[in-house]
């Protein structure tokens, strides 16, 4: 029993961290209706800068903590004013979520450059000796964590519920235009909410850092845990955020203690999926219910430039000729391999584009299907000598089953919760890849996977693989291109624009989404298998959640809803680190920055901009109908 209580206390301490991050999410969400994924990075920034000032510069703890918290608040203000608030008027909610993922990467990159990749362990505030409370050992830092959490909750509650300022903050989320008419400066309020959330994050980071070891990308874990906590508890209520955080902390700690540390993640995600099915709006409802008939309308309509068939064919021919000739000019080695990787990832990206670009369904778990495909093919090949082709097909079949199971949950969800459910799926695959060590080789990976081969033909060399992937891509491009131009493709685009109107027109929304997700899953699985065969090795972080986010980044940078666009993103993000090898530690920073910039200034992506340029030059002007608007009454 004591042991149980001991573990629960540990869970409460971990949960308090999650709760504080969840509070930051909830705060920003309630002012802007957007989840700000940078929240976790603010924690780590706060913790690392305090460590630097305290331990390396020898400032006292209060001075170091105070200075860092002020600095992080200013950084939050900068992020808010420079990227977040400008984005609000230009991007849809789903793209805002992705842009904040980009900002998270940007901040992580910054920390990597400043502090390197080694872990840090900041000292506790008041000694290492834990205190006995009724026979339970509580680390001294625990009191700081609990005290700080309570203080922040109280102050925040008072601020939002009791002050005019808080009402104004809430008014911005309710109805920005009406808030403006009341004389509220909406964008200043939005910037302020980010800064306040950053401050909460920094305080949380400073206080909790001594209980764990931190490095530049720990923020990602904090963000994901906070995101899960807020989804379990309910996004638009503070008690929900806190309850979700504590519950998540206790459950993961108990699971680690009594089941296995490898499965604690999977159990937390299972909890999340159950909550999403049972209560899609979280366990605790907001005191003030939002009207359900008000739809989450995109603020911005995206226009995708289409090329005329003649122009398209010419461009495709030129592109194909270039692709075939390319190995003649590129030396065998790093760059060739990178091109193969980009091509393989592009297979998964075409699937992602069908789901995200055409059907408008956010998918943050695409790499999960890559994992299924990669591990299935790899396992069958290493253990049972199954031919690569059959292994690949088996992986695709398994992915299809997984996609159908996932769709049981996701079909009912939209927007934020859809993003979350797919993210949870990806994380679940992550923890299975780690946990099922007998099949996957666990954290160290599956080794000894053979090269891809069809009968006697072995695709061992990068050049052979290059042409195999190129052939597959051409075939898939023709297939999907035709599919997208069929009535099915138009139905998907109708769903993206307005799901309700699409249903009213007689489009079977459920079936269309199901088919789109299945196509996407099969292609991701194929990519995953090829990836494993190409590397002869597969580890969980090669097909983990970071990969999922990277895929989305590639898609957006390249151009959503264009099918070919993602290729540009894939080549760019794969080649950059290879070409700039000496600047490798700037890679994270650069790709985050690139993502944020392309969201803000090139929302149609590289290919979209290119297509607009080509269209302006080569498309013939369309005939404008001159018939009267009203022809009869």
């Amino acid at each position: 029993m004591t042991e149980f209580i001991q573990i629960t206390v540990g869970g409460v301490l971990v949960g308090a961290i999650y709760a504080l991050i969840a509070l930051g999410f909830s705060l920003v969400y309630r002012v802007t209706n957007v989840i700000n994924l940078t929240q976790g990075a603010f924690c780590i920034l706060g913790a690392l800068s305090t460590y630097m000032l305290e331990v390396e510069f020898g400032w006292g703890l209060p001075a170091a903590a105070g200075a860092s918290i002020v600095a992080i608040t200013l950084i939050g203000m900068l992020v808010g004013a420079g990227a977040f608030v400008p984005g609000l008027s230009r991007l849809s909610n789903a793209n805002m979520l992705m842009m904040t993922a980009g900002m998270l990467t940007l901040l992580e990159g910054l920390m990597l450059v400043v502090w390197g990749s080694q872990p840090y362990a900041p000292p506790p505030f008041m000694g290492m000796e834990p205190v006995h409370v009724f026979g339970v050992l509580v680390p001294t830092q625990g009191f700081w964590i609990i005290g700080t959490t309570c203080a922040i909750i109280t102050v925040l509650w008072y601020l939002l519920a009791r002050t005019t300022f808080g009402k104004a903050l809430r008014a911005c989320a309710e109805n920005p235009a009406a808030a403006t008419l009341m004389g509220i400066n909406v964008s200043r309020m939005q910037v302020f909410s980010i800064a306040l959330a950053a401050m909460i994050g920094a305080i949380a980071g400073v206080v909790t850092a001594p209980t764990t070891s931190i490095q530049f990308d720990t923020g990602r874990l904090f963000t994901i845990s906070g995101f899960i906590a807020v989804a379990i508890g309910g996004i638009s209520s503070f008690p929900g955020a806190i309850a979700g955080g504590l519950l998540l902390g206790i459950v993961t700690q108990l699971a680690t203690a009594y089941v296995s540390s490898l499965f604690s993640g999977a159990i937390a995600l299972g909890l999340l999926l159950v909550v999403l099915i049972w209560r899609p709006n979280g366990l605790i409802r907001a005191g003030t219910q939002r009207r359900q008939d008000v739809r989450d309308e995109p603020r911005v309509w995206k226009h995708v430039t289409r090329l005329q068939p003649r122009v398209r064919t010419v461009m495709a021919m030129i592109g194909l000729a270039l692709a075939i000739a390319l190995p003649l000019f590129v030396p065998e080695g790093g760059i060739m391999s990178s091109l193969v990787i980009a091509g393989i990832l592009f297979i998964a990206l075409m699937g992602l584009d069908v789901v995200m670009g055409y059907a408008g369904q956010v998918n943050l778990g695409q790499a999960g299907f890559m994992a299924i495909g990669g591990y299935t093919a790899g396992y069958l090949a290493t253990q049972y000598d199954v031919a690569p082709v059959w292994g690949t097909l088996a992986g695709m079949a398994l992915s299809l089953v997984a996609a159908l199971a996932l769709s049981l949950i996701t079909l009912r969800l939209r927007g934020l919760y859809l993003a979350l459910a797919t993210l949870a799926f990806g994380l679940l695959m992550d923890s299975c890849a780690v946990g099922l060590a007998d099949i996957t080789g666990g954290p160290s990976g599956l080794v000894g996977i053979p090269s891809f081969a069809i009968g006697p033909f072995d695709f061992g060399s990068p050049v052979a693989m290059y042409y195999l992937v190129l052939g597959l891509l051409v075939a898939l491009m023709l297939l999907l291109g035709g599919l997208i131009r069929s009535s099915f493709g138009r139905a998907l685009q109708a769903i993206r624009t307005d799901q309700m109107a699409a249903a009213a027109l007689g489009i079977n929304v459920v079936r269309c989404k199901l088919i789109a997700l299945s196509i996407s899953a099969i292609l991701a699985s194929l990519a995953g298998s090829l990836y494993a065969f190409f590397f002869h090795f597969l580890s969980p972080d090669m097909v983990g959640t970071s990969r999922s986010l990277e895929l989305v980044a590639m898609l957006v940078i390249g151009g959503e809803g264009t099918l070919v666009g993602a290729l540009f993103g894939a080549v760019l993000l794969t080649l950059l680190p290879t070409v700039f090898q000496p600047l490798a530690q700037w890679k994270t920073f650069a790709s985050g920055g690139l993502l944020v910039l392309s969201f803000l200034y090139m929302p149609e992506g590289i290919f979209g901009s290119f297509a607009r340029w080509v269209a302006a030059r080569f498309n013939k002007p369309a005939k404008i109908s001159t018939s009267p608007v009203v022809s009869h009454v």
Partner: protein
Amino acid sequence: MMLECRGITAGYNGSPVLEKIDISIGEGEIVTLVGANGAGKSTLVNAISGLLRPMSGEIHFDGKRIDQLSPADRVRMGIAHVPEGRQVFAGMTVAENLSLGAYTQSSRSVSDLRSGRMRELCDQYPFLRERINDVVGNFSGGQQQMLAIARGLMSNPRLIMLDEPSLGLSPLMVQEVLNLVTQLRERGLSVLLSEQNARAALAIADRGYVIENGRVTLSGKASDLLDSPEIAERYLGVGAATRFSQEESKRMAASLRDCIGPATDSPVPGVRMS
């Protein structure tokens, strides 16, 4: 004149909706903007309240130029805008909505001032007091409209602009809203009333402007406009003289009349067919 707009051109994404509009509102006047859906009435009101920056032209309030000021500054100067579709803060209570209306009134005695004005408004509209702590999202359209107007009054304005206050309300409720507008004038406020219900709006207004395709096509005393034969045709929205011939609009008006009801009497309340 209290408010003067000179040569306002305004629109969205670089394409103008309004072209060179001139209007003015005097102290204690009810001025109505009449026009079909899409004529540009709301665009004009948004330009005056600052939700939209005009592309060219000047807006003067009390002799001061205001078109470069922020919406907040304009609220402080005494311009309140009750937007189209009410736009109450649906997830908040009546009290919270009202106190946000007085957001710009930040003086030290602010809470006294607020509660004072809130009490005053509650005396006028008893339902506000009855439901002061209820979340307003589930109120009826009429109640939300009343609340939106009350919220606008919280900032103690001298000019209140009501954009389509009768939208989606029952005829009885429309009458109540319009009665309220005349009461506002009695209290010394100037009112800019943008309405599709031309007859009803002109009946209570002092002056009116007819807006069509982004231009003022008719203006004058409300009583004169009411008798104008052009109003009926223009108000139906089929008389866009630029596009259709006289015959065609007559034919369309006739078929519209057939659609709506018996051909003997006027199909739309308050619109006389010529």
